[in-house]
Protein backbone atom coordinates (compact mmCIF):
# COMPACT_ATOMS: atom_id res chain seq x y z
CA UNK A 1 0.00 0.00 0.00
CA UNK A 2 1.26 3.45 -0.93
CA UNK A 3 1.65 6.52 1.18
CA UNK A 4 -0.81 9.36 1.56
CA UNK A 5 1.93 11.87 2.35
CA UNK A 6 2.21 14.60 -0.21
CA UNK A 7 3.58 18.06 -0.80
CA UNK A 8 1.43 20.99 -1.83
CA UNK A 9 3.01 24.30 -2.84
CA UNK A 10 6.07 23.43 -0.83
CA UNK A 11 4.12 22.42 2.27
CA UNK A 12 4.55 18.86 3.49
CA UNK A 13 1.27 17.18 4.30
CA UNK A 14 0.69 13.87 6.04
CA UNK A 15 -2.24 13.17 3.72
CA UNK A 16 -4.26 15.06 1.13
CA UNK A 17 -7.37 15.97 3.18
CA UNK A 18 -7.83 19.53 4.46
CA UNK A 19 -10.84 21.53 5.60
CA UNK A 20 -12.52 24.30 3.64
CA UNK A 21 -12.14 27.82 5.01
CA UNK A 22 -15.00 28.70 7.32
CA UNK A 23 -16.15 25.15 7.84
CA UNK A 24 -14.11 24.19 10.88
CA UNK A 25 -13.09 26.06 14.02
CA UNK A 26 -10.13 24.05 15.23
CA UNK A 27 -10.00 26.06 18.44
CA UNK A 28 -13.51 24.89 19.28
CA UNK A 29 -13.42 21.34 17.92
CA UNK A 30 -9.81 20.37 17.24
CA UNK A 31 -8.33 19.66 13.84
CA UNK A 32 -10.50 16.58 13.27
CA UNK A 33 -7.47 15.02 11.61
CA UNK A 34 -6.90 17.45 8.71
CA UNK A 35 -3.34 17.48 7.38
CA UNK A 36 -3.33 21.29 7.32
CA UNK A 37 -5.78 23.62 8.98
CA UNK A 38 -7.38 26.35 6.89
CA UNK A 39 -8.76 29.24 8.92
CA UNK A 40 -12.00 31.09 8.40
CA UNK A 41 -11.42 34.19 6.26
CA UNK A 42 -9.89 37.03 8.27
CA UNK A 43 -10.54 40.64 7.30
CA UNK A 44 -8.75 43.82 8.36
CA UNK A 45 -11.61 44.92 10.61
CA UNK A 46 -13.73 42.68 12.80
CA UNK A 47 -17.03 41.67 11.22
CA UNK A 48 -20.19 40.70 13.09
CA UNK A 49 -21.49 38.80 10.07
CA UNK A 50 -25.03 38.81 8.72
CA UNK A 51 -28.16 38.71 10.86
CA UNK A 52 -29.85 35.31 11.31
CA UNK A 53 -31.18 33.14 9.80
CA UNK A 54 -27.78 32.35 8.34
CA UNK A 55 -28.24 28.85 6.98
CA UNK A 56 -30.87 27.04 4.97
CA UNK A 57 -31.03 23.42 3.99
CA UNK A 58 -31.43 22.71 0.27
CA UNK A 59 -31.55 19.51 -1.78
CA UNK A 60 -28.21 17.81 -1.00
CA UNK A 61 -26.73 21.04 0.17
CA UNK A 62 -27.18 24.25 2.09
CA UNK A 63 -27.12 27.96 1.49
CA UNK A 64 -25.25 30.12 3.97
CA UNK A 65 -25.07 33.83 4.51
CA UNK A 66 -22.62 33.92 7.38
CA UNK A 67 -21.12 37.13 6.03
CA UNK A 68 -17.47 36.59 6.95
CA UNK A 69 -18.01 36.89 10.68
CA UNK A 70 -14.47 37.14 12.10
CA UNK A 71 -12.51 38.87 14.86
CA UNK A 72 -10.49 41.07 12.53
CA UNK A 73 -6.77 40.98 11.76
CA UNK A 74 -5.59 42.39 15.07
CA UNK A 75 -7.37 40.01 17.37
CA UNK A 76 -6.80 37.11 15.00
CA UNK A 77 -3.05 37.63 15.10
CA UNK A 78 -2.89 38.35 18.81
CA UNK A 79 -5.32 35.80 20.18
CA UNK A 80 -6.01 33.11 17.61
CA UNK A 81 -2.78 32.64 15.70
CA UNK A 82 -0.66 31.71 18.73
CA UNK A 83 -3.19 29.05 19.72
CA UNK A 84 -3.52 27.80 16.14
CA UNK A 85 0.26 27.50 16.01
CA UNK A 86 -0.02 24.88 18.73
CA UNK A 87 -2.36 22.63 16.75
CA UNK A 88 0.54 20.69 15.32
CA UNK A 89 -0.45 20.92 11.66
CA UNK A 90 0.58 23.44 9.02
CA UNK A 91 -1.65 26.52 8.96
CA UNK A 92 -3.18 28.05 5.88
CA UNK A 93 -4.67 31.41 6.74
CA UNK A 94 -7.49 32.75 4.58
CA UNK A 95 -7.64 36.51 4.09
CA UNK A 96 -10.30 38.72 2.55
CA UNK A 97 -10.76 42.39 2.01
CA UNK A 98 -12.35 45.33 0.29
CA UNK A 99 -9.31 46.68 -1.48
CA UNK A 100 -5.86 45.61 -2.60
CA UNK A 101 -4.34 47.49 0.29
CA UNK A 102 -6.49 45.72 2.86
CA UNK A 103 -5.37 42.36 1.52
CA UNK A 104 -1.77 43.54 1.43
CA UNK A 105 -1.83 44.62 5.07
CA UNK A 106 -3.29 41.29 6.11
CA UNK A 107 -0.84 39.29 4.00
CA UNK A 108 2.18 41.14 5.38
CA UNK A 109 1.09 40.70 8.97
CA UNK A 110 -0.07 37.10 8.68
CA UNK A 111 2.73 36.00 6.37
CA UNK A 112 5.28 37.14 8.89
CA UNK A 113 4.07 34.66 11.50
CA UNK A 114 6.36 31.62 11.56
CA UNK A 115 3.48 29.17 12.03
CA UNK A 116 1.80 30.16 8.78
CA UNK A 117 2.61 27.77 5.93
CA UNK A 118 0.59 29.45 3.22
CA UNK A 119 -2.05 32.12 2.67
CA UNK A 120 -5.32 31.77 0.86
CA UNK A 121 -6.78 34.88 -0.73
CA UNK A 122 -10.56 34.69 -0.66
CA UNK A 123 -11.68 36.67 -3.69
CA UNK A 124 -14.93 34.79 -3.88
CA UNK A 125 -17.20 35.24 -0.88
CA UNK A 126 -20.78 35.79 -2.05
CA UNK A 127 -21.88 37.03 1.35
CA UNK A 128 -20.38 40.48 1.47
CA UNK A 129 -21.44 43.54 -0.42
CA UNK A 130 -18.42 44.63 -2.43
CA UNK A 131 -14.79 43.59 -2.07
CA UNK A 132 -13.76 39.93 -2.22
CA UNK A 133 -16.00 38.65 -4.93
CA UNK A 134 -15.97 41.75 -7.08
CA UNK A 135 -12.21 41.38 -7.28
CA UNK A 136 -12.59 37.70 -8.08
CA UNK A 137 -14.96 38.28 -10.99
CA UNK A 138 -12.43 40.49 -12.76
CA UNK A 139 -9.26 38.88 -14.13
CA UNK A 140 -7.31 42.15 -14.20
CA UNK A 141 -8.21 42.98 -10.59
CA UNK A 142 -7.30 39.47 -9.55
CA UNK A 143 -3.91 39.67 -11.26
CA UNK A 144 -3.21 43.04 -9.65
CA UNK A 145 -4.23 41.75 -6.23
CA UNK A 146 -1.92 38.78 -6.47
CA UNK A 147 0.98 40.96 -7.64
CA UNK A 148 0.42 43.37 -4.79
CA UNK A 149 0.27 40.60 -2.20
CA UNK A 150 3.24 38.67 -3.60
CA UNK A 151 5.35 41.67 -2.72
CA UNK A 152 4.39 41.29 0.93
CA UNK A 153 5.35 37.72 1.72
CA UNK A 154 7.60 34.81 0.88
CA UNK A 155 4.83 32.35 1.70
CA UNK A 156 2.91 30.69 -1.11
CA UNK A 157 -0.31 32.49 -2.01
CA UNK A 158 -3.37 30.48 -3.00
CA UNK A 159 -6.26 32.14 -4.81
CA UNK A 160 -9.73 30.93 -3.85
CA UNK A 161 -12.12 31.50 -6.71
CA UNK A 162 -15.85 31.61 -7.23
CA UNK A 163 -17.52 29.39 -9.84
CA UNK A 164 -20.23 32.05 -10.27
CA UNK A 165 -18.45 33.76 -13.15
CA UNK A 166 -18.66 33.28 -16.90
CA UNK A 167 -15.20 31.74 -17.15
CA UNK A 168 -13.41 30.81 -13.96
CA UNK A 169 -10.35 29.65 -15.90
CA UNK A 170 -9.76 33.22 -17.09
CA UNK A 171 -9.68 34.40 -13.48
CA UNK A 172 -7.43 31.48 -12.58
CA UNK A 173 -5.03 32.38 -15.35
CA UNK A 174 -4.90 35.96 -14.14
CA UNK A 175 -4.17 34.72 -10.62
CA UNK A 176 -1.37 32.56 -12.00
CA UNK A 177 0.09 35.48 -13.90
CA UNK A 178 -0.08 37.57 -10.74
CA UNK A 179 1.99 35.01 -8.88
CA UNK A 180 -0.44 32.61 -7.24
CA UNK A 181 1.32 29.41 -6.22
CA UNK A 182 -1.91 27.45 -6.27
CA UNK A 183 -5.70 27.63 -6.53
CA UNK A 184 -8.53 26.71 -4.18
CA UNK A 185 -11.64 25.70 -6.12
CA UNK A 186 -14.48 26.34 -5.47
CA UNK A 187 -16.06 28.78 -3.10
CA UNK A 188 -19.83 28.53 -2.78
CA UNK A 189 -22.18 29.04 -5.72
CA UNK A 190 -24.49 32.04 -5.48
CA UNK A 191 -27.89 30.95 -4.27
CA UNK A 192 -30.94 31.94 -2.31
CA UNK A 193 -33.59 30.31 -0.15
CA UNK A 194 -37.21 31.29 0.37
CA UNK A 195 -39.01 30.62 3.65
CA UNK A 196 -41.60 28.01 2.80
CA UNK A 197 -44.15 29.46 5.23
CA UNK A 198 -43.82 33.22 4.81
CA UNK A 199 -42.44 33.07 1.25
CA UNK A 200 -39.94 35.74 2.30
CA UNK A 201 -36.18 35.45 1.82
CA UNK A 202 -35.14 32.93 4.47
CA UNK A 203 -31.64 34.21 5.07
CA UNK A 204 -30.85 37.36 6.94
CA UNK A 205 -28.39 38.31 4.23
CA UNK A 206 -31.00 37.85 1.50
CA UNK A 207 -28.84 35.76 -0.79
CA UNK A 208 -26.11 33.32 0.11
CA UNK A 209 -23.70 30.66 -1.06
CA UNK A 210 -24.65 27.13 -2.02
CA UNK A 211 -22.42 24.28 -0.87
CA UNK A 212 -22.56 20.53 -0.37
CA UNK A 213 -22.87 17.57 -2.76
CA UNK A 214 -25.26 19.60 -4.94
CA UNK A 215 -22.31 21.67 -6.19
CA UNK A 216 -19.90 18.79 -6.79
CA UNK A 217 -20.36 18.87 -10.59
CA UNK A 218 -19.70 22.62 -10.56
CA UNK A 219 -16.47 22.12 -8.61
CA UNK A 220 -15.27 19.35 -10.94
CA UNK A 221 -15.89 21.60 -13.92
CA UNK A 222 -13.98 24.53 -12.43
CA UNK A 223 -11.07 22.34 -11.34
CA UNK A 224 -10.81 20.63 -14.72
CA UNK A 225 -10.72 23.88 -16.65
CA UNK A 226 -8.46 25.83 -14.32
CA UNK A 227 -6.01 22.95 -14.30
CA UNK A 228 -6.04 22.80 -18.07
CA UNK A 229 -5.45 26.52 -18.44
CA UNK A 230 -2.99 27.20 -15.61
CA UNK A 231 -1.35 23.91 -14.64
CA UNK A 232 -1.27 25.25 -11.05
CA UNK A 233 -1.68 22.90 -8.11
CA UNK A 234 -5.23 22.92 -6.80
CA UNK A 235 -7.06 22.36 -3.51
CA UNK A 236 -10.32 20.77 -4.64
CA UNK A 237 -13.34 21.70 -2.55
CA UNK A 238 -17.08 21.69 -3.19
CA UNK A 239 -19.29 18.82 -2.20
CA UNK A 240 -16.55 16.32 -1.39
CA UNK A 241 -18.26 13.69 0.76
CA UNK A 242 -16.25 10.46 0.51
CA UNK A 243 -12.95 8.91 -0.57
CA UNK A 244 -14.31 8.23 -4.05
CA UNK A 245 -14.96 11.96 -4.44
CA UNK A 246 -11.29 12.62 -3.64
CA UNK A 247 -10.27 10.45 -6.57
CA UNK A 248 -12.68 12.16 -8.93
CA UNK A 249 -11.47 15.59 -7.81
CA UNK A 250 -7.86 14.48 -8.20
CA UNK A 251 -8.52 13.17 -11.67
CA UNK A 252 -10.11 16.49 -12.64
CA UNK A 253 -6.95 18.21 -11.42
CA UNK A 254 -6.95 18.65 -7.64
CA UNK A 255 -3.72 17.73 -5.82
CA UNK A 256 -5.39 17.72 -2.42
CA UNK A 257 -9.02 18.08 -1.34
CA UNK A 258 -10.84 19.96 1.38
CA UNK A 259 -13.97 18.92 3.22
CA UNK A 260 -16.46 21.67 3.95
CA UNK A 261 -20.16 21.23 4.47
CA UNK A 262 -19.72 17.48 4.82
CA UNK A 263 -17.92 18.10 8.13
CA UNK A 264 -21.04 19.68 9.59
CA UNK A 265 -22.83 16.37 9.26
CA UNK A 266 -19.93 14.25 10.32
CA UNK A 267 -16.88 15.68 12.06
CA UNK A 268 -15.29 12.23 11.87
CA UNK A 269 -15.28 12.31 8.08
CA UNK A 270 -11.67 13.40 7.62
CA UNK A 271 -10.48 10.36 9.51
CA UNK A 272 -12.88 8.08 7.67
CA UNK A 273 -11.77 9.33 4.27
CA UNK A 274 -8.08 9.10 5.17
CA UNK A 275 -8.62 5.54 6.38
CA UNK A 276 -10.49 4.56 3.22
CA UNK A 277 -8.20 6.20 0.67
CA UNK A 278 -5.32 3.69 0.56
CA UNK A 279 -7.63 0.77 -0.19
CA UNK A 280 -9.55 2.73 -2.78
CA UNK A 281 -6.34 3.83 -4.49
CA UNK A 282 -5.23 0.22 -4.57
CA UNK A 283 -8.51 -0.81 -6.20
CA UNK A 284 -7.79 1.78 -8.87
CA UNK A 285 -4.35 0.28 -9.34
CA UNK A 286 -2.32 3.21 -8.01
CA UNK A 287 -0.45 3.79 -4.81
CA UNK A 288 -0.80 7.52 -4.18
CA UNK A 289 -3.35 10.18 -4.97
CA UNK A 290 -0.62 11.94 -6.95
CA UNK A 291 -0.82 9.09 -9.46
CA UNK A 292 -4.39 10.03 -10.23
CA UNK A 293 -3.98 13.81 -10.34
CA UNK A 294 -5.01 15.16 -13.73
CA UNK A 295 -5.87 11.76 -15.17
CA UNK A 296 -9.06 13.07 -16.73
CA UNK A 297 -6.89 15.31 -18.90
CA UNK A 298 -5.03 12.46 -20.55
CA UNK A 299 -7.88 10.81 -22.36
CA UNK A 300 -7.45 9.46 -25.88
CA UNK A 301 -4.43 11.58 -26.49
CA UNK A 302 -5.81 15.00 -25.76
CA UNK A 303 -9.03 14.81 -27.70
CA UNK A 304 -11.45 15.20 -24.84
CA UNK A 305 -9.75 18.13 -23.29
CA UNK A 306 -9.87 19.96 -26.58
CA UNK A 307 -13.52 19.18 -27.15
CA UNK A 308 -14.30 20.47 -23.73
CA UNK A 309 -12.03 23.49 -23.76
CA UNK A 310 -14.11 24.75 -26.63
CA UNK A 311 -17.12 24.83 -24.40
CA UNK A 312 -16.03 27.57 -22.15
Amino acid at each position, binding site marked *: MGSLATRFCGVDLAHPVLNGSGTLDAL*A*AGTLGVSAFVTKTVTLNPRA*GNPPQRIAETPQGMVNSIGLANPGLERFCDEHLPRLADLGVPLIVSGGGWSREEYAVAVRRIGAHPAVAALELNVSCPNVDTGCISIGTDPAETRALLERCRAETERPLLAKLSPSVADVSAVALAAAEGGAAGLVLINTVRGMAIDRDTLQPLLGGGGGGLSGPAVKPVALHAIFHCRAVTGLPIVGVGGVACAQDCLEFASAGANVVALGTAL*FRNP*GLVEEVVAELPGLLERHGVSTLDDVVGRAHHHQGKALLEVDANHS
Partner: protein
Amino acid sequence: MPPDRRTLQVARVEAVGAYTLLVLRNDGGEVGAPGQFFMLQADPEPHGAYLPRALSAAWADAGEIAFLLDVRGDGTAALVGAAQVSVLGPLGHGFELHHGPAILVGGGIGAAILPWLVRDLPGPVTTLLGFREQRHAVCAALIDADATVVLEPTYVTEPLARLLPADATVYACGPDAMLQAVAALCAEHAVPCLLAMEAAMACGFGACYGCAVEIDGEWKRLCIEGPVLEAGRVLAGGHDG
Protein backbone atom coordinates in the same frame (compact mmCIF):
# COMPACT_ATOMS: atom_id res chain seq x y z
CA MET B 1 -12.40 18.19 22.00
CA PRO B 2 -13.84 16.78 18.75
CA PRO B 3 -17.49 15.90 19.37
CA ASP B 4 -18.36 12.27 19.77
CA ARG B 5 -20.45 10.63 17.03
CA ARG B 6 -22.00 7.21 17.24
CA THR B 7 -24.79 5.17 15.78
CA LEU B 8 -27.52 4.14 18.20
CA GLN B 9 -30.43 1.74 17.77
CA VAL B 10 -33.97 3.01 18.17
CA ALA B 11 -35.46 1.32 21.24
CA ARG B 12 -38.99 2.67 20.84
CA VAL B 13 -41.11 5.40 19.30
CA GLU B 14 -44.32 6.53 21.00
CA ALA B 15 -46.91 9.14 20.26
CA VAL B 16 -47.29 11.58 23.16
CA GLY B 17 -50.32 13.55 22.05
CA ALA B 18 -49.23 15.74 19.17
CA TYR B 19 -45.57 15.02 19.86
CA THR B 20 -43.47 11.88 19.46
CA LEU B 21 -41.09 10.28 21.92
CA LEU B 22 -37.98 8.77 20.35
CA VAL B 23 -35.95 6.56 22.68
CA LEU B 24 -32.50 5.40 21.64
CA ARG B 25 -30.62 2.54 23.23
CA ASN B 26 -27.49 4.13 24.63
CA ASP B 27 -24.29 2.12 24.57
CA GLY B 28 -23.12 3.58 27.83
CA GLY B 29 -21.80 6.58 25.96
CA GLU B 30 -21.54 10.01 27.46
CA VAL B 31 -24.84 11.86 27.78
CA GLY B 32 -23.85 15.18 29.34
CA ALA B 33 -26.30 17.21 31.38
CA PRO B 34 -29.88 18.51 31.08
CA GLY B 35 -30.06 21.29 28.49
CA GLN B 36 -27.26 19.96 26.34
CA PHE B 37 -28.22 18.86 22.86
CA PHE B 38 -27.37 16.34 20.18
CA MET B 39 -27.30 16.48 16.38
CA LEU B 40 -29.36 13.58 15.09
CA GLN B 41 -29.71 12.08 11.65
CA ALA B 42 -31.52 8.95 10.55
CA ASP B 43 -29.09 6.29 9.34
CA PRO B 44 -28.99 5.46 6.42
CA GLU B 45 -29.14 9.08 5.32
CA PRO B 46 -32.73 10.04 4.66
CA HIS B 47 -33.86 11.58 1.41
CA GLY B 48 -34.73 15.25 1.75
CA ALA B 49 -32.87 16.00 4.97
CA TYR B 50 -29.26 16.74 4.19
CA LEU B 51 -28.37 18.26 7.55
CA PRO B 52 -28.75 16.62 10.95
CA ARG B 53 -31.32 18.06 13.39
CA ALA B 54 -30.53 19.63 16.75
CA LEU B 55 -32.48 18.04 19.60
CA SER B 56 -32.19 18.39 23.35
CA ALA B 57 -32.45 15.19 25.29
CA ALA B 58 -35.70 14.79 27.25
CA TRP B 59 -33.71 12.52 29.53
CA ALA B 60 -30.60 10.44 29.19
CA ASP B 61 -28.51 7.91 31.07
CA ALA B 62 -26.15 5.06 30.29
CA GLY B 63 -29.08 2.92 29.15
CA GLU B 64 -31.09 5.23 26.93
CA ILE B 65 -31.37 8.71 25.47
CA ALA B 66 -34.87 10.03 24.91
CA PHE B 67 -36.04 12.89 22.73
CA LEU B 68 -39.46 14.49 22.51
CA LEU B 69 -40.05 15.60 18.95
CA ASP B 70 -42.40 17.89 17.18
CA VAL B 71 -42.40 16.12 13.81
CA ARG B 72 -42.64 18.98 11.37
CA GLY B 73 -40.45 18.27 8.41
CA ASP B 74 -38.42 15.66 6.62
CA GLY B 75 -35.63 15.41 9.17
CA THR B 76 -37.73 14.64 12.23
CA ALA B 77 -40.05 12.43 10.15
CA ALA B 78 -37.07 10.35 9.08
CA LEU B 79 -35.86 10.11 12.69
CA VAL B 80 -39.10 8.67 14.05
CA GLY B 81 -39.18 6.19 11.15
CA ALA B 82 -35.57 5.04 11.48
CA ALA B 83 -34.20 1.82 12.91
CA GLN B 84 -30.94 3.50 13.81
CA VAL B 85 -29.81 7.05 14.27
CA SER B 86 -26.47 8.76 14.08
CA VAL B 87 -25.94 10.88 17.17
CA LEU B 88 -23.40 13.64 17.66
CA GLY B 89 -22.96 14.96 21.18
CA PRO B 90 -23.61 15.87 23.91
CA LEU B 91 -23.02 19.40 22.66
CA GLY B 92 -23.07 22.90 24.08
CA HIS B 93 -23.69 24.09 27.60
CA GLY B 94 -26.61 22.73 29.60
CA PHE B 95 -28.34 24.13 32.67
CA GLU B 96 -26.30 25.07 35.67
CA LEU B 97 -28.32 23.44 38.44
CA HIS B 98 -28.80 26.01 41.18
CA HIS B 99 -29.58 24.88 44.70
CA GLY B 100 -32.85 25.98 46.22
CA PRO B 101 -36.30 26.13 44.69
CA ALA B 102 -36.77 26.04 40.92
CA ILE B 103 -39.49 27.29 38.65
CA LEU B 104 -39.60 25.51 35.30
CA VAL B 105 -41.31 27.25 32.42
CA GLY B 106 -41.96 25.38 29.20
CA GLY B 107 -43.72 26.52 26.05
CA GLY B 108 -44.82 24.06 23.40
CA ILE B 109 -42.15 21.61 22.29
CA GLY B 110 -39.75 23.61 24.48
CA ALA B 111 -41.11 21.43 27.28
CA ALA B 112 -39.14 18.58 25.70
CA ILE B 113 -36.10 19.60 27.63
CA LEU B 114 -37.73 19.58 31.10
CA PRO B 115 -38.15 15.94 32.22
CA TRP B 116 -34.43 15.47 32.74
CA LEU B 117 -34.19 18.80 34.53
CA VAL B 118 -37.02 17.84 36.91
CA ARG B 119 -35.21 14.60 37.67
CA ASP B 120 -31.84 16.21 38.35
CA LEU B 121 -32.73 19.46 40.12
CA PRO B 122 -31.75 19.20 43.80
CA GLY B 123 -34.44 21.51 45.27
CA PRO B 124 -38.23 21.76 45.14
CA VAL B 125 -39.66 22.29 41.63
CA THR B 126 -42.69 24.19 40.39
CA THR B 127 -43.53 23.51 36.75
CA LEU B 128 -45.51 25.86 34.50
CA LEU B 129 -46.35 24.70 31.00
CA GLY B 130 -48.10 26.46 28.14
CA PHE B 131 -49.41 24.79 25.01
CA ARG B 132 -51.38 25.65 21.93
CA GLU B 133 -53.98 22.90 22.33
CA GLN B 134 -54.75 20.00 24.63
CA ARG B 135 -53.14 17.47 22.30
CA HIS B 136 -49.81 19.25 22.78
CA ALA B 137 -50.29 19.28 26.56
CA VAL B 138 -50.33 15.49 26.78
CA CYS B 139 -46.56 15.52 27.31
CA ALA B 140 -46.98 17.36 30.63
CA ALA B 141 -47.38 13.95 32.27
CA LEU B 142 -43.80 13.08 31.27
CA ILE B 143 -42.49 16.15 33.04
CA ASP B 144 -44.30 16.76 36.31
CA ALA B 145 -47.62 15.30 37.48
CA ASP B 146 -48.24 18.50 39.46
CA ALA B 147 -47.46 20.90 36.63
CA THR B 148 -49.66 23.93 36.07
CA VAL B 149 -50.77 23.71 32.43
CA VAL B 150 -52.31 26.58 30.50
CA LEU B 151 -53.60 26.55 26.94
CA GLU B 152 -53.77 29.41 24.47
CA PRO B 153 -55.06 32.10 24.61
CA THR B 154 -53.58 31.99 28.13
CA TYR B 155 -49.82 32.40 28.13
CA VAL B 156 -47.53 30.65 30.55
CA THR B 157 -46.21 34.03 31.66
CA GLU B 158 -49.52 34.57 33.50
CA PRO B 159 -48.99 31.88 36.18
CA LEU B 160 -45.33 32.87 36.26
CA ALA B 161 -46.20 36.50 37.01
CA ARG B 162 -48.33 35.32 39.94
CA LEU B 163 -45.37 33.38 41.38
CA LEU B 164 -42.91 36.25 41.18
CA PRO B 165 -41.06 37.60 43.06
CA ALA B 166 -39.80 34.31 44.46
CA ASP B 167 -36.66 32.97 46.04
CA ALA B 168 -36.11 30.63 43.12
CA THR B 169 -34.25 30.14 39.85
CA VAL B 170 -36.32 30.16 36.69
CA TYR B 171 -35.41 27.63 33.96
CA ALA B 172 -37.23 28.34 30.72
CA CYS B 173 -37.49 26.81 27.29
CA GLY B 174 -39.88 27.66 24.49
CA PRO B 175 -40.45 29.99 21.58
CA ASP B 176 -38.37 33.16 21.40
CA ALA B 177 -41.23 35.50 22.25
CA MET B 178 -42.01 33.47 25.38
CA LEU B 179 -38.36 33.46 26.45
CA GLN B 180 -38.14 37.22 26.05
CA ALA B 181 -41.28 37.68 28.15
CA VAL B 182 -40.03 35.30 30.84
CA ALA B 183 -36.64 37.01 30.90
CA ALA B 184 -38.28 40.43 31.22
CA LEU B 185 -40.45 39.27 34.13
CA CYS B 186 -37.46 37.74 35.91
CA ALA B 187 -35.35 40.84 35.35
CA GLU B 188 -38.13 42.98 36.78
CA HIS B 189 -38.15 40.89 39.94
CA ALA B 190 -34.39 40.26 40.01
CA VAL B 191 -34.94 36.53 39.85
CA PRO B 192 -32.11 34.47 38.30
CA CYS B 193 -33.21 33.06 34.99
CA LEU B 194 -31.70 30.53 32.57
CA LEU B 195 -33.02 30.24 29.03
CA ALA B 196 -32.59 27.29 26.67
CA MET B 197 -32.65 28.84 23.23
CA GLU B 198 -32.93 27.62 19.65
CA ALA B 199 -31.40 28.69 16.37
CA ALA B 200 -31.00 27.11 12.96
CA MET B 201 -27.92 24.93 13.26
CA ALA B 202 -25.90 23.15 10.60
CA CYS B 203 -23.17 21.60 12.73
CA GLY B 204 -23.74 22.03 16.47
CA PHE B 205 -20.01 22.22 17.28
CA GLY B 206 -18.91 25.71 16.34
CA ALA B 207 -17.85 25.04 12.76
CA CYS B 208 -20.45 26.81 10.63
CA TYR B 209 -21.24 30.07 12.45
CA GLY B 210 -24.82 29.51 11.36
CA CYS B 211 -26.43 29.60 14.80
CA ALA B 212 -25.77 33.27 15.49
CA VAL B 213 -27.82 34.78 18.31
CA GLU B 214 -27.32 38.17 19.87
CA ILE B 215 -25.47 37.30 23.06
CA ASP B 216 -23.68 39.92 25.18
CA GLY B 217 -24.65 42.43 22.49
CA GLU B 218 -22.89 40.57 19.67
CA TRP B 219 -23.78 37.80 17.23
CA LYS B 220 -22.33 34.72 18.87
CA ARG B 221 -22.66 31.02 18.21
CA LEU B 222 -25.50 29.54 20.24
CA CYS B 223 -24.05 26.04 19.97
CA ILE B 224 -20.87 27.21 21.72
CA GLU B 225 -22.21 29.81 24.16
CA GLY B 226 -25.49 28.00 24.84
CA PRO B 227 -27.99 26.67 24.11
CA VAL B 228 -28.62 27.50 27.79
CA LEU B 229 -27.81 31.10 28.62
CA GLU B 230 -28.28 33.42 31.54
CA ALA B 231 -31.19 35.62 30.55
CA GLY B 232 -29.15 38.76 31.08
CA ARG B 233 -26.81 37.83 28.26
CA VAL B 234 -29.54 37.84 25.67
CA LEU B 235 -32.11 40.25 27.04
CA ALA B 236 -30.01 43.38 26.77
CA GLY B 237 -29.82 44.11 23.06
CA GLY B 238 -32.92 42.60 21.55
CA HIS B 239 -31.69 41.81 18.09
CA ASP B 240 -33.46 43.11 15.06
CA GLY B 241 -32.40 40.35 12.65
